[in-house]
């Protein structure tokens, strides 16, 4: 109730309309409006018209209603006329102009954005972040461009693609390009479709670089070089276009042999492992052989040192010690007279070394034995 204008709340007016129904009596807006005759805005014929003069709006509505009923289906309300109508028009136009000014003169530029301003179509400057004021459209128009935001383009859009390398091999490749707008003016005015241009440039640059790279480089150690070269080449091409774009970086997400060749590539790795393994074995053999040689040489040196002090004695001692050790472990037969060998009981020896015929013929350890 309280939001209704004072003249509506006046009891006489309400009184005059009470008999119409339960809603009308409460002065309820919805109830009061559903019949033209009870329209609360309408100035009641017998009501008081001293304090509140009929406003232009009242006038308009009244005439509209009158026109609609009187026209008999001519359609559309009549335009208000007269001095009050002029006011009405001025207010309407004023509101429209105000809205227009607010919407086209104030520009909210985000912190990552710049506004590119054109005055009657001609570039006239840039707007920094914040709320900025310009002349209204169509004199001035502002286009917002994200400059700080780093844009990320992935190639290819899904999975990976085959690329030919310089040694005519095929590489499974996926990579990402990061870039941002450096010069919003060029970005807006120099190239028709800058985003697509950056994409096409990236593909072209990547393949141009890979065409001069070997497969092994691309798969292995050459990645960072390739990334740097693609970044540089892209930047150079885009500068030629005056695209106003700064390439932040290119990163290779995947560079590998085609899936069907994985086994063969693994075989190469296996062969490398095998080769290294072989070499390791050889090295360990080498260590053993040399160490043994050194050991034996050192042992001989030690003995020889002593031998030189007393050659004859040492020689004899060594001889007897050796013979002792050797003969203690063997079966011995001493033949007093030459020529009796065949009748000796040699079966013991035969028993030990089954079919060997070597035993009887075994010569004595010293050259004298045969004689």
């Amino acid at each position, binding site marked *: 109730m309280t939001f209704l204008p004072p003249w509506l709340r006046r009891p006489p007016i309400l009184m005059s309309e009470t008999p119409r129904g339960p809603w009308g009596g409460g002065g309820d807006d919805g109830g009061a409006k559903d019949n033209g005759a009870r329209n609360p805005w309408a100035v009641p014929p017998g009501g008081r018209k001293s304090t509140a003069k009929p406003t232009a709006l009242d006038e308009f509505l009244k005439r509209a209603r009158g026109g609609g009923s009187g026209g008999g289906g001519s359609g559309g309300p009549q335009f208000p006329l007269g001095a009050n109508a002029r006011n009405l028009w001025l207010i309407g136009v004023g509101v429209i102009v105000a809205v227009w000014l607010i919407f086209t003169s104030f520009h909210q530029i985000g912190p990552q954005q710049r506004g590119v301003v054109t005055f009657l179509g001609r*570039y006239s400057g840039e707007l920094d972040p914040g709320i900025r004021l310009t002349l209204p459209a169509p004199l001035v128009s502002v286009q917002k461009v994200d400059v700080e935001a780093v844009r990320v383009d992935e190639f290819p859009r899904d999975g990976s693609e*085959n690329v030919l390398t310089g040694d005519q091999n095929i590489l499974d490749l996926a990579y990402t390009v990061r870039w941002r707008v450096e010069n919003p003016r060029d970005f807006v005015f*120099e190239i028709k479709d800058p985003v697509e241009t950056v994409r096409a440039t990236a593909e072209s640059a990547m393949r141009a670089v890979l065409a001069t790279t070997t497969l092994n480089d691309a798969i292995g150690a050459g990645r960072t070089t390739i990334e740097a070269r693609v970044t540089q080449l892209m930047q150079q091409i885009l500068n030629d276009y005056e695209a106003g774009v700064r390439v932040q970086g290119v990163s290779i997400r995947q560079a590998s042999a085609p899936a069907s060749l994985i086994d063969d590539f693994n075989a190469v790795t296996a*062969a490398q492992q095998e080769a290294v393994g072989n070499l390791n074995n050889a090295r360990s053999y080498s260590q053993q052989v040399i160490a043994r040689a050194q050991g034996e040489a050192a042992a001989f*040196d030690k003995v020889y040192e002593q031998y030189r002090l007393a050659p004859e004695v040492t020689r004899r001692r060594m001889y007897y010690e050796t013979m002792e050790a*050797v*003969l203690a472990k063997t079966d011995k037969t001493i033949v007093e007279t030459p020529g009796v060998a065949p009748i000796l009981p040699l079966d*013991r020896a035969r028993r030990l070394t089954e079919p060997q015929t070597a035993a009887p013929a075994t010569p004595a350890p010293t050259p004298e034995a045969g004689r």
Partner: protein
Amino acid sequence: MNPVMRNPVTIGFAALGAAILAAATFAIVPETKQAVVLRLNNPVGQPVNQYQPGQVIGRTGAGLIARIPFIDKIVWVDKRVLDADLDNTLVLSTDQLRLNVDAFARFRIVDPLRAVTSTGSTSNTEERVADQLRPLLGTALRNELGKVPFSVLLSPERGRVMDAIQASLQRDARQYGATIVDVRIKHADLPDGSPLESALQRMRTARQQEANTIRAQGQKQAQIVRAEADATAAKVYAEAFSKDAQFYDFYRAMQSYRHTFGADGGPQPEGSTSIIMGRDNAYLEKFNNR
């Protein structure tokens, strides 16, 4: 106040009329467009905001222009760098390799009047120029790539090939009022099927060859290392033993007996031993009390 002016309907209509007249008279030429003015289909004067090399944006011909309403017609032509994309062109190199090539040409319409007259269009001039350039690009691509072997495409020469394509296309583009900014090969792929398969097969055999080479090289290295070790050992032996060859002979003989007859504490020798000694045996010298 006269009655006409008092009537808002009249004012409204007048305003509307004025607005229409203004819109028909004045036109805003944006930075991104060039305008060709046709007076009853006859070009008048120079195109507005025509591209000029080295022009600074903000000091171009963009801005407000006036024309004779309803008689002059403006044809808009894009001023920016445009793009003519060519997808999946089959190219045959001199060594008879088939290649699927995606390429693009970046161009700019520098003579909008010529672009309009040569394409005979008053709308979408850029697209029509691109449509005209596309087959020309295809032809230039086939001609230039047909002159070089496949391997050139995969080498630093590639840039030169693209320059040649650009030069050849530049001549054709001029008649459409366009200039080629750049020509680039986006993709150059082997077509699916047998060319791709045979390339993969070649890669496979190359890998196998590499694996075998690595293995053989490894074996060679190992053999060399072993031989070097043997040589070093021989040298060490020789240095030590050549001090007294006679004593070495004796010393080594003693070692050898011990080993052969299983007296050196090592494993039993393979054949067990039985020794028959004559009475003249040197060892039995004292046995015989000589």
